[in-house]
């Protein structure tokens, strides 16, 4: 029988700072602020934290949290260097740690000045996971994620007839959701025509197909199921998995560049949770680019490969549709907090605390991560008791 973490861990606290474009706070200060909120949300105190999983490519290491919180006995720390898949992959690592009893309460913090400091091309060039791209492809002119992922979207369009109108549907839906969220950066309405008129970045990606660069911090606390019962509003983790695509260091050599690591993770997470895509009420899907959402819907099993474009049409992924996606506005219109904002939003949905974006009677929800050059991660959660 496959290893299972179902019911052995729960997200017990979430914390988010204001998401902005421009801040005078350091990236460390942002994640300390978010972490304090997450600990308080759980009804815990900083001294209760004994495990730390900071963002691997970020501005802080476990030692910074030990120092600033004055922690006396941290028993577990690690990182999950998978770019945008890191935060959800860290949920798996945290669940393993609390399920084994290695530690009790694990903090997953992230904070960044993506708008105020370095931009993405220089950030990824410094990441060790990008060394193959840096040596062999950057000299010819590709290093930024938009440049690396655009050929995946282009091939998907050529093979399956996916259209720019369908990409626009994703962007417009995320914007509509963001406008229900007081902590979302983008508040101006967007139409399909606005999307098509936005400037071309890397064909087929226009500006409105690309996520934001933003400043902010977010954090969650994960505890073992036994201890979670004493916290304010624990959200149970039913299934969790990470998946690495073939040729994980470089997209170019991958047998099928329209299939992500998530395609390997999804059956494991759904199997662990004992549910299928048809049971999911709300999905927070890593949306660094519009097409990335389309592809993940396929790799999650919501539709066959090649039909993700048609799937996002007709309001299906909007609030009130069959599968509301990114009810907070996503990386495209809320903020780019490397998907920890997606994790926080799913927890709110599972608690019934998502405000104007609440999906009625949400019982099962999922959150994905996508990053580096195709890594994927997935967590499935159930409604808070």
């Amino acid at each position, binding site marked *: 029988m496959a290893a299972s973490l179902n019911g052995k861990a729960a997200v017990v606290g979430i914390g988010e700072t204001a998401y902005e474009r421009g801040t005078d706070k350091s990236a460390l200060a942002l994640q300390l602020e978010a972490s304090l909120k997450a600990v308080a949300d759980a009804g815990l105190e900083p001294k209760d934290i004994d495990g730390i999983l900071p963002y691997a490519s970020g501005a802080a290491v476990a030692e910074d949290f030990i120092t600033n919180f004055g922690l006396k006995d941290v028993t577990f720390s690690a990182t999950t260097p998978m770019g945008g898949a890191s935060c959800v992959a860290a949920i798996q690592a945290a669940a393993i740690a609390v399920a084994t009893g290695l530690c009790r309460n694990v903090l997953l913090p992230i904070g960044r000045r993506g708008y105020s400091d370095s*931009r*993405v*091309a220089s950030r990824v*060039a410094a990441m060790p996971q990008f060394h*193959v791209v*840096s*040596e*062999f*492809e*950057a*000299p*010819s*002119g*590709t*290093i*930024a994620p*938009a*440049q690396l992922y*655009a*050929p*995946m979207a*282009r*091939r998907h369009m*050529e*093979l399956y007839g996916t259209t720019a109108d369908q990409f626009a549907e994703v962007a417009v839906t995320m914007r509509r959701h963001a406008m229900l969220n007081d902590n979302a950066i983008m508040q101006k309405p967007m139409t399909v025509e606005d999307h098509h008129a936005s*400037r*071309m*970045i*890397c*064909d*087929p*990606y226009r500006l409105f197909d690309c996520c934001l660069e933003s400043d902010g911090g977010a954090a969650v606390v994960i505890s073992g199921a036994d201890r979670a019962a004493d916290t304010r509003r624990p959200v149970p983790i039913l299934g969790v998995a990470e998946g690495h695509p073939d040729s994980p260091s*470089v997209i*170019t*050599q991958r047998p099928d*560049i329209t299939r992500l690591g998530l395609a390997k993770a999804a059956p494991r997470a759904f199997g662990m949770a004992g549910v299928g895509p048809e049971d999911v009420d709300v999905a927070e899907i890593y949306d660094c680019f519009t097409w990335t959402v389309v592809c993940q819907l396929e790799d999650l099993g919501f539709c066959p490969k090649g039909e993700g474009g048609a799937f996002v049409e007709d309001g299906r992924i909007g609030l009130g549709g069959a599968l509301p996606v990114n009810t907070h506005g996503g990386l495209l219109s809320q903020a780019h907090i490397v998907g920890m904002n997606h994790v926080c939003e799913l927890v709110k949905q599972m608690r019934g605390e998502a405000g104007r974006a609440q999906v009625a009677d949400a019982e099962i929800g999922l959150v994905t991560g996508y990053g580096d050059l195709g890594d994927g991660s997935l967590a499935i959660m159930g409604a808070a008791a």
Partner: protein
Amino acid sequence: MSAARPAPEPTIDSKPYWDGLKERRLLLQQCGNCGLVRHYPRPMCDACHSLQVQWIESSRRGRLYSWTEVHHPFVPGFREEIPYVMATVELAEGVRLQCQILNADPDALGLDLPVEIVFREVQDGLVLPFAQVV
């Protein structure tokens, strides 16, 4: 003066590839045990785990696997070249290569378009492969 391109830092495993480009030859690794051709250069064959490697010269023939026309200057060294088309080329040897297309009409590109690989010295001592529609 224009900004420099990002320059490769060849490793023990990749130096023959970069040296080959300087001689305007596209060299690929072939497993010394099972004969599998692989790219980009790395120490081990993923099929048989042999560390023995030999270098073969590519036919430079290939087909377009995918592409993107780059309009935004993410890297200062390419500011004067935009827009340019980055191609993913599937070589006849079965491996792929990421390079710019020299004579591309973006509207005329399509999957499996035949291309050949040619060479250009883009800055002092740096020769890169480029694709050319045949």
